[in-house]
């Protein structure tokens, strides 16, 4: 097609339009970037008056909150990291590709579930249930990995025909009913065993013999609920990192006689280590800043206690509750903004670190693939 010839009088107009548009886009882009920058500047500016007040109350007030934040994040990571990394290893190395293309988006959907919904289930449904069935909950935590291992043993001893039907590359799906069955067995047996062995309720026993208080909404509940929210993020990034490991590495290791697991453990995991690390870091960032789940599932008591059965109050939750009532310019207001600044800096640093590590890793993979 021949482009229509333009009269020479329109030419400068087009140039002008182009200049203006470029200027506008640049201005718009810069405004956005400045707005983003403004967040940091605002938070810093609003915490300056605290320096002028110059008393040590800030530390005393913020430290239980910082402790609560760390405790909640730690509890969540203790649950989320093993599950998410296990899931990532399985889906990147063992799962059938067809299944993986379905399961991965499904697990990533988990991340989209709003925090209020998770918090509501945790705070109002899970917490009272665990309080009534503490022994069952504790047994389940041990029983689930055991039942997975049991499934493995049974499968290895099973006949080849059955193995063909239930292939390991689909185990992520057909283990679901197995786990349901195992959970049902555990829930059915535990009260009886509890009665026989402990002669009563585990919670009363803890209280009477060891003097351990049990709060309905505690770190255990927060760990499970926030772990649930953090798993998909860690899983998705770790899975990407593992799947991006050049397949020549793993295949080479297997060709030298390593089993699939050895190749994974000694080669792939080492190569993808930084990627996995950055996935955990991003998960930690999310766990530190999550507000609604901690607010609804933690009981919001600003305590210094390491017990998993007691509540805590995190910085994010304190901001959400107290800031609307704090008078602007007052000390509480500035303190809470300091808490927000701490959260901002922490998550920003953690995420930057993770991003830098990931970019470096990607460059290394590219080099590896280029040389092989």
């Amino acid at each position, binding site marked *: 097609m021949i482009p229509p010839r333009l009269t020479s009088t329109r030419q400068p107009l087009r140039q002008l339009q182009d200049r203006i548009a470029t200027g506008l886009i640049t201005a718009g882009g810069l*405004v956005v970037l400045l707005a983003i920058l403004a967040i940091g500047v605002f938070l810093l500016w609003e915490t300056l008056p605290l320096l002028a007040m110059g008393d040590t109350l800030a530390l005393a007030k913020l430290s239980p909150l910082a402790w609560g934040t760390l405790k909640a994040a730690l509890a969540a990571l203790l649950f989320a990291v093993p599950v998410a990394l296990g899931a990532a290893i399985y889906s990147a190395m063992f799962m059938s590709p067809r299944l993986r293309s379905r399961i991965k988006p499904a697990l990533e959907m988990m991340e989209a579930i709003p925090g209020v919904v998770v918090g509501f289930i945790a705070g109002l449904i899970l917490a009272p249930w665990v309080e009534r069935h503490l022994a069952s909950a504790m047994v389940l935590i041990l029983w689930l990995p055991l039942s997975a291992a049991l499934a493995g043993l049974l499968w290895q001893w099973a006949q080849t025909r059955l193995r063909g039907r239930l292939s390991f590359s689909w185990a992520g799906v057909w283990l679901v009913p197995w*786990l349901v069955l195992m959970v049902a067995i555990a829930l059915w047996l535990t009260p009886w065993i509890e009665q026989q062995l402990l002669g009563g309720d585990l919670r009363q026993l803890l209280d009477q013999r060891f003097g351990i208080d049990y709060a309905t909404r505690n770190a255990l509940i927060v760990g499970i609920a926030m772990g649930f929210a953090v798993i998909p993020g860690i899983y998705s990034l770790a899975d990407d990192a593992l799947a991006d490991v050049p397949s020549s590495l793993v295949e080479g290791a297997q060709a030298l006689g390593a089993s699939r697991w050895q190749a994974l453990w000694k080669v792939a995991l080492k190569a993808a280590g930084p990627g996995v690390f950055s996935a955990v870091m991003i998960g930690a960032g999310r766990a530190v800043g999550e507000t609604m789940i901690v607010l609804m599932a933690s009981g919001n008591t600003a305590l210094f206690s390491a017990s998993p059965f007691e509540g805590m109050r995190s910085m994010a939750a304190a901001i959400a509750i107290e800031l609307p009532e704090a008078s602007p310019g007052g000390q509480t207001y500035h303190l809470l903004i300091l808490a927000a600044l701490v959260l901002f800096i922490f*998550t920003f640093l953690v995420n930057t670190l993770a991003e830098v590590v990931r970019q470096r890793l990607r460059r290394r993979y590219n080099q590896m693939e280029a040389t092989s």
Partner: protein
Amino acid sequence: MTPVSTAFRRFHWLNGLWPWLCAASVALSLLMLGALLSLLLVRGLGHFWPATLEEITLRSGDTFAGHAVREVALPQQAGDERLYFTGNRDIEGARWRWVAIDEIAERTQPVDLIRLERSPWGDFIGRLVALEQPDQRFEGDAAWQRLTALLALPANQRQDSQLQLATADGQTVRQPLANVISAQAPNAMSWWQKTGAWSEAVWLFLSEGPRAANTSGGVWPAIFGTVLMVILMSVIVTPFGVLAAIYLNEIAHQGRLTRFVRVGVRNLAGVPSIVYGVFGLGVFVYGIGGSLDTWFFSDTLPSPTFGTGGLLWASLTLALLTLPVVIVATEEGLARIPDAQREGAVALGATRLEMLTRIVLPTAAPAMLTGVILAVARAAGEVAPLMLVGVAKLAPQMPLDDEFPYLHLERKFMHLGYHLFDTAFHGEDVQAAIPLVYATALLLVLIVLGLNLTAIFLRHYLRRQRGNEC
């Protein structure tokens, strides 16, 4: 060979179990997701199914009517106890009753038990004895038919009537019809009628406002507020996000600084939402809103107009929060366009603006759409920042009405997520509110997951299409 490695050898078969633990992690995640979703589905939708009413006679001779809610083990002794919803708060003072199962002498399901929804006082469960009108008196079955006929009319056309009601233990009460919202005789209903009643209840939940301290009624104002806020937010975030992405990808010099900025933008997606809430409160509400008040609304001070949380500030805050999402998604789309297309356009004499508007933007449009949908999904589920910048427990006025200027940006609004939080944690009768909380949670999850699924399919479709082209 060291002893450690022989020990390792001996338990070599244990190594084969590690992959199973990994497989079980996937299974566990799927199980938790499935359990959460099915719990929400069953409880959220099940609440609207007309519950069978029972008449319970205890060993002590006491009689009451209600529907069973759940059973738990009795504390300190063997056996279970059951929770009944009995209604009749005006008569008995409580709406719930725990009964040990061993104490129940008889459970029957008489067809003449009815359930009235009233305001005030909530539900009544019992029998209809008579319906009295100034000139007429209906009894028994005729009364019930007359009642349903009256309730089918709009509220202002119903004749003045008095209901004579009897509770299960024989007390009679009089109830003016004006306070009755709906009546149901679930035990007499067929399965088909119950389905009808169920769909009607679901519809009322979606289309009505909350009543009786959030324990009945619906969530319409919250849906409306959420949607309005999200629309305003997308109107703000789309142009700015797209502009910033075009600037970063097409105009800015691709140097160290740009890469730095890109990492920064990406990381803002990981900054906790509450931090954006703090920024919105400090800058938008107190800063800009406070100044607007002193300049334009000084006659109403000290009561603030824009200097308090409101729709505009909430939308702006969430727009800032979702900006990185839009920028990242748009940039991905822009980066996937081969440079040859841009160069071809420029080689044919197009200016940069023409190249952008005719070649680049149309090709990247689905990516932008994906970004906006993801942003909307994130904003719809976000609650923490809204608690700081303008969400309300119960907004007396809708932010959109027929009063000039129609859209009231300074008004507070209701939001599904906050409504859920407030009902579940600050309600006076949490027990009664929980079924509705389940329904609200289900609705919220469906909205957010639906939006996310749309984005995923769009992206998938886009990749496939692009794959064919290249």
